[in-house]
């Protein structure tokens, strides 16, 4: 019988290693079905201006609560330490969780994190009791600073948000994984297809956060299921210990005892 293999994030155990974003689905009903099909137990949410009298946010929040999943509020679209810290405070009150996916965007074309501001904001929030999930790059020194600042989880990007390009810097991500083997790491951003997710898990990353690849698929519910199976397969493969690639062929059929038929 396989041993339980749960994902532990800030003391919370999750069975699913697939985190799902809730943005850009064709409809609330499809979002609901996609979350169910993905098996995700943690979904990302955000805060936006509520149009007076519209109450769209209230409906969304009730939909999420009915799903019975944990939420990870983000600070998307924040460009400064102050904006991100204030947004985190507001999210903590609304969503009732100390968890925050900390994003401080440094550049609009790539949505690359401003890692200097990220570290500063992470330090402030960790000191205030937040449990910070920093959206970062694969930079080793930045990772070290984030851990020093109090982060206990890292969320390196695979490639730019919404780009679907997969793991853009394989060498850098492998180096990051190897440098901090004990730190839970989630690949956040850039995953386009289930094989990218499987690859992330095979490399030893602890989970993936997917949004656009599911919500913008022709059939998001079906794609959510495909991602769930890819993540499970990738994790199993990691635990099973993948073989080392080689440059030259090695016969898989034993050579000894080969008949001489020439």
């Amino acid at each position: 019988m396989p041993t339980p293999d749960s994902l532990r994030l800030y003391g919370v155990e999750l069975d699913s290693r697939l985190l799902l974003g809730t943005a850009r689905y064709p409809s609330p009903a499809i979002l609901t079905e996609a979350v169910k099909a993905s098996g995700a137990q943690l979904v990302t949410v955000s805060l936006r201006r509520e149009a007076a009298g519209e109450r769209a946010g209230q409906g969304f929040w009730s939909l999420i609560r009915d799903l019975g999943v944990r939420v990870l509020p983000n600070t998307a679209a924040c460009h400064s330490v102050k904006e991100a810290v204030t947004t985190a405070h507001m999210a903590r009150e609304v969503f009732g969780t100390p968890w925050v996916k900390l994003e401080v965007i440094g550049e609009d074309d790539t949505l690359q994190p401003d890692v200097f501001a990220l570290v500063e904001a992470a330090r402030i929030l960790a000191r205030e009791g937040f449990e910070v999930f920093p959206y970062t790059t694969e930079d080793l020194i930045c990772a070290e600073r984030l851990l020093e600042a109090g982060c206990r989880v890292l969320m390196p990007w695979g490639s730019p948000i919404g780009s679907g390009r997969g793991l853009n810097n394989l060498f850098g991500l492998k180096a990051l994984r190897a440098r901090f083997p004990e730190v839970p790491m989630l690949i956040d951003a850039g995953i386009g297809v289930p094989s990218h997710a499987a690859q992330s898990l095979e490399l030893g990353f602890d989970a993936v956060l997917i949004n656009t690849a599911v919500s913008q698929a022709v059939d998001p519910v079906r794609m959510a299921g495909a991602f769930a199976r890819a993540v499970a397969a990738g994790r199993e493969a990691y635990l099973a210990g993948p073989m080392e690639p080689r440059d030259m062929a090695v016969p898989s059929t034993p050579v000894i005892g080969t008949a001489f038929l020439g």
Partner: protein
Amino acid sequence: MNIQVNGEWRQIGAQDLAGALEEIGLGGTVVATAVNGEFVPASSRAAARLAEGDRLEVLSPMQGG
């Protein structure tokens, strides 16, 4: 007085943040508030006095990635 609510100027009669939320139809909803860029917790809204030209942000749960 004139208050900017989520980027739009509005005439508000209420003198405090809790009253202003009621006035714009968001009383009793799950929202987070900030005045002039500073977070105002729900428990402090009744005591938070508003002044002419204040910038009020009212944020609500939304889809996010």
